[in-house]
């Protein structure tokens, strides 16, 4: 079948044109480098330094040194918190898979797709505080979930998910998956806008079923965007859930929903111990680089054309 992408074009790697290309590339990336360097990497480097001190902002920081990391990493509470982060990763495939299916259906123009495309994105516009309150009310013992269960005759399955540690984390993960639907769906729709309709048409003429087209044509061409969504979803799970956790569970019960990000806030930021906040933040930073960048490099080895 002629559905597999053409081999990548060989462009000259040497010569005048190549040099012009490299120069243009450098020139066009300078604004981003300056912005990110000055406003993100500068404070990151400062935070690395502060992470080894008792910095609180106004009094002279006392140097602790790299042993601060050893102490933090041997703390059983930190272990428990890291376990939560690891468990939250299990939600990522669903947070990508569900929007992928929705995007594929919308892209196929199922009945009412214009309406659904609008409505599915709406909750993305709502503040985390509201989402947290709604989720809290939904999962509560006297909340919606149990009313719905009772309505369909499952009243005996009375849940109180937010009252026990791992169930609360599951409830948080469900809310997180729900909250990612809008964002990831439009990322995949963007990706599908790059698909060549003639390819899909050809597949249809070849007699492929809808499912076959999805798995054999659409999905391979969307790899880049799935990769992108993966990185963004991991980043969201690890560093964008603070407000949701704050309102929905407060990190509890116990340490059940305290992720490292929330721990950065509670043990460091809210206590005014910015050194400790930086310490846990850098640990999280390293973990996310391993998970996120590692994934980007991994894909590269497969298609030989990664980042």
């Amino acid at each position, binding site marked *: 079948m002629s559905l597999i992408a*053409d081999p990548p*074009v060989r462009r000259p790697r040497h010569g005048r044109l190549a040099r012009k*290309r490299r120069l*243009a*590339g450098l020139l*066009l*990336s300078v*604004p*981003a480098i300056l*912005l*990110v360097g000055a*406003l*993100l990497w*500068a*404070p*990151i480097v*400062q*935070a690395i330094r502060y992470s080894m001190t008792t910095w609180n902002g106004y009094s002279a920081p006392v140097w602790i040194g790299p042993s601060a990391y050893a102490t933090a990493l041997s703390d059983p509470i930190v272990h428990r918190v890291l376990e939560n982060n690891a468990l939250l990763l299990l939600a990522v495939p669903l947070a990508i898979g569900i929007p992928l299916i929705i995007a594929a259906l919308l892209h196929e123009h*199922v009945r*009412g797709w214009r309406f659904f*495309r*609008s*409505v*599915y*994105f709406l909750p*993305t*516009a*709502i*503040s985390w*505080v*509201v989402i947290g*309150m709604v989720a809290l009310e939904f999962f509560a013992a006297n909340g919606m979930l149990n009313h719905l269960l009772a309505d369909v005759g499952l009243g005996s399955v009375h849940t109180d998910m937010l009252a026990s540690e791992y169930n609360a984390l599951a409830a948080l993960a469900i809310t997180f998956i729900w909250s990612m639907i809008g964002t990831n769906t*439009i*990322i995949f*729709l*963007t*990706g599908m*806008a*790059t*698909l*060549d*309709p003639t390819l899909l048409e050809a597949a249809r003429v070849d007699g492929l079923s809808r499912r076959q087209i999805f798995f054999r044509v659409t999905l391979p*061409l969307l790899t880049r965007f799935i990769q*992108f969504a993966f990185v963004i979803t991991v*980043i969201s799970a*690890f*560093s964008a859930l603070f*407000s949701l956790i704050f309102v929905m569970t407060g990190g509890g019960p116990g340490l059940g929903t305290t992720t*490292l*990000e929330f721990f*950065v806030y509670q043990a460091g930021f809210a206590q005014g111990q*910015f050194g400790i*906040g930086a310490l846990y*933040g850098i640990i*999280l*930073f390293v973990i*996310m*680089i391993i998970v*996120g*960048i590692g994934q980007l490099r991994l894909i590269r080895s497969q298609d030989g054309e990664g980042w």
Partner: protein
Amino acid sequence: MATASARPAEAASAPSAPATPVSRWQSARFRRRVTATAIFTIMVLIAIVMFYPFWYMGDNSFRNQAQFDRQSGHSLAGWKQLFNDLPVVHQLVSSTIVCVAAIAIILVVATTAGFAFAKLRYRGSGLVFLLIVAAMMVPLQSIIIPEYVNLAKFSLTSNYAGAVLVYAALGAPFATFLMATFYRGISDELIEAAVMDGLSYERTFLRIALPLSLPAIATVTVLQFIQIWDDLLVGYLFLPTGDRTITVGLAVLSSGRTTGIPPLMAGSLVSAIPAIIVYLIFQRYLIRGLTLGMGK
């Protein structure tokens, strides 16, 4: 598909046709119809779930605190309190200024850099790209105080400038990443053909790549708009109190001991509307078929 589902009775009662092929044809069509109905039902259910928070906000905004506590009765108290306690309009204007300025910067740096990292690679560009993407992986709470100290030194915290710059920097890695991902889908021949025609790479970017990337630009705009609009921490630290964003303004409704939920719900509803409008405007660019020279 609509006609198929509109005539189920006729299809089921076509007695005169030969038995075997028709029943196969019928059952295939029947199966397709069942699938379509099932999909439609699930889509409707998801839509209800997605819409529920709006009902929750609307319902609870028309209460006073006692009515909220007891979840019975409605009144205009929440809305009255919102407009009494907060300069809502001024804060909406502030939010808009900050969002528009920051997104303008984000789009400029992200489209250019995204194109460079995807199509105009140079020695080390892969590493630079990874460093830019990595910069969004540190939790904001860990770097915001050093950031604040740095910007305060340059007196950038007494007007919009500081917050705009920080938002732009926070959004740039995501946007650059998405733009680069998108530009990688443009075929190299297209770019090289334009260059052969005598355009410089910079002009090729402006004339060819940029117009093609409207779907990605729309996505960046929508997602960053929401991100910045709903952010609390940066607006809180970097904006002067007179020029607060609506999100910071609403946070004032919760105190050390209690929270005025009805006005908070009313405010959240008001605050969600601009983002929704932005999405509804931009979603028409998220269509299939913008494929001139796309796909490799």
